[in-house]
């Protein structure tokens, strides 16, 4: 029978492997760290003068643009991380190494959840490293905010990771991945509250503001923003949790051995190797 220690060992094995892979892929490690720093150190400084911010919740005073953009950049870290996991799912599937995961006797939904958790833990570590660097940039949320941010980072990371998993089931080949990035990452990032508050977007385009309000990424960012300043955004919690359930459910269906795409189409090895 499948007992609790067996489930635990499986989860641990997947988390350890994901962690080792992250550490070994130096380029990925540095890219993940440098990307938000470029935004913070260059974009945010240049943008500070362009964008006037009023006092909006959860902030209680006037803030510099750098302070506003930090939660958005954490969201970006998690968004990229989710897509990175998606990319590695497609890659593993194409290279055949995913099969070693799938022949585990544990149920497939559990294996997917383990994969998801492992990816999220990596993204949470990245987020805290970034927060530490931002602290030297004088972006200093209240000390307890760093603790309060943890559940928000986990929930937001899970939602974006689940989106990546779901997308990976639609991507048939590695070559199609760049297209998905263009159609998912960039619109999600720019049409959100990550870089500018929604009331600012509304001044420019009410339609875009409406899109941003519907964008789950906006809610992941707001969730983190509020938590960092010891506040709770209930709408964000509900939207992010709802989207997580939706995306994860979809991914589990897509990877199901009876219903999913595995059963409907032959893999690349099928056509070549027979």
């Amino acid at each position, binding site marked *: 029978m499948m007992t609790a220690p067996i489930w635990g060992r499986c989860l641990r094995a997947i988390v*350890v492997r994901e962690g080792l892979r992250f550490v070994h892929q130096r380029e990925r490690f540095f890219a993940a760290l440098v990307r938000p720093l470029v935004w913070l150190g260059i974009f945010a400084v240049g943008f500070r003068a362009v964008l006037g911010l009023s006092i909006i919740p959860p902030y209680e005073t006037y803030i510099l643009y750098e302070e506003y953009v930090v939660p958005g950049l954490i969201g970006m870290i998690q968004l990229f991380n989710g897509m990175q996991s998606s990319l590695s799912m497609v890659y593993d599937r194409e290279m055949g190494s995913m099969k070693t995961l799938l022949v585990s006797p544990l149920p497939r939904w559990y294996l997917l959840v383990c994969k998801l958790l492992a990816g999220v833990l990596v993204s949470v570590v990245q987020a805290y490293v970034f927060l530490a660097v931002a602290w030297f940039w004088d972006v200093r949320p209240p000390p307890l905010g760093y603790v309060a941010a943890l559940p928000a980072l986990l929930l937001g990371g899970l939602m974006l990771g689940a989106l990546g998993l779901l997308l990976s089931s639609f991507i048939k080949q590695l070559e199609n991945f760049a297209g998905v990035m263009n159609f998912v990452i960039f619109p999600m990032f720019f049409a959100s509250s990550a870089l500018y508050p929604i009331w600012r977007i509304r001044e420019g385009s009410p339609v875009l503001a409406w899109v941003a309000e519907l964008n789950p990424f906006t809610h992941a960012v707001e969730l983190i923003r509020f938590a960092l300043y010891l506040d709770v955004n209930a709408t964000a919690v509900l939207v992010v949790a709802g989207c997580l359930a939706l995306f994860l459910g979809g991914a589990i269906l897509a990877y199901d051995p009876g219903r999913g795409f595995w059963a409907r189409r032959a893999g690349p090895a099928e056509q070549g190797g*027979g």
Partner: protein
Amino acid sequence: MAVPAEVPVLEVEGLSHRFGERKALDGVSFAIPAGRFVALLGLNGAGKTTLFSLITRLYNNQTGGIRVFGVDMRRHPARALARIGVVFQQPTLDPDLTVLQNLRYHGGLHGLSSKRITESTREELTRIGLADRADERVRSLSGGQRRRVEIARALLHRPDLLLLDEPTVGLDIELRRQVLDHVHALCRERGLAVLWATHLIDEAWADDGVVVLHRGRVLAAGPVAELRAEADGVSLGEAFGRLTAAAAPRGGAP
């Protein structure tokens, strides 16, 4: 768990599978008892990979049954999968991780305890003569060594059935012989049941079993000697050629 001697380790019965219009497998049936090496012979496109995907439950079978020690794969996938070790056609070790890290990952996926993983890893690596390379990255191993590590990995959870999908692809003649010897020895010494997919006729030895798969159908299944006897004592290659030629002209509509 005591298993009656007559229950085969692997039993495939009436297995059919289609991808849309294309029928990849059509009424496939055969069985493998303990301690038997069975070569699954078939040309490219015969349906070998589809058959492997179904036995490893990459996806569910649509019709027919797959049983491991009498345990139905669809009804109790966890129990059935726990007794199977698989070596896939494509290399699946993580080249950036060490041999040990790769093996520990696999052991964890099967829910083995840390202690047991350590024991099994030492045992399997010693068997293949790579115990002293455990902490090296897989990248630094040769192709033949990687293959042997993959076989060691498949045996880590002590399965009763070992599946290998064209495991000698990309190996030179000498390494091919080594891997083949190694797996035959496992069969004899451990009573492991082996299903070895290949399109290389000479990988089936004289006292092995053979399943001839052609365009998704089993043309013949049984001991190599029997197959040759039925074909008036010609070589296995000749017998295979006659069977597939008689079945359907190559290049016709599927």
